[in-house]
């Protein structure tokens, strides 16, 4: 499932992602296949396009170091 860091494609995808949003990344982490303001919005979009392999990421309000 998680064999490598998938650096470049993942980073490029995340850099292009809207902040403070939900995105769905392709299973190989190389591209954004859906995005939206809420988890449910993104899941609905994935159902519309018939994607069964993407996974969701919540992007933070900024890419500053996280201290939660």
């Amino acid at each position, binding site marked *: 499932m*998680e064999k490598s860091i998938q650096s470049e494609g993942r*980073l490029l995808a995340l850099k292009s992602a809207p902040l403070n949003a939900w995105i769905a990344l392709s299973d190989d982490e190389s591209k954004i296949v859906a995005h939206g303001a809420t*988890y449910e919005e993104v899941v609905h979009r994935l159902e519309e396009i018939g994607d069964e392999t993407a*996974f969701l990421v*919540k992007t933070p309000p*900024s*890419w500053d170091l996280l201290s*939660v």
Partner: protein
Amino acid sequence: MRVPFKQVPGSTIPVLYPLLRVAISKRHGPKSRPFEAMVDSGAGDCMFHSSIAPGIGIKVEGGRKETRTGIGGTQDVWVHPVQLWFGADMLSIEAAFSHTLPVAGLLGRMGFFEHYKITFDPSTHPPEIELERIYRA
């Protein structure tokens, strides 16, 4: 199981975090889509963003209201029993749901670390997290 840290953009350079793909469900309910959660040894328990809850049949504010205090201050959370799915494992845990969590989920001490022997290994590139399931009688 060893899982490489994942990169995210930093404010200046990319940053590596221990992120795992997990899913959650209400007991006997549908599973969420897989999502990335951060392994956080400083978190007291597992916490998930409230946005995930409606899709798995949980009314967030119907749970047990508590507060959590972190670097960013104190916030209200609502605790619910959930099933946490990671790899082939299913853990029955109590998890807090937050409206303001900046990430999708935190995997903390109660509910996650109590079920695995966890090693953060910075000697590899990228660093890896090693998880060994603990089974108690």
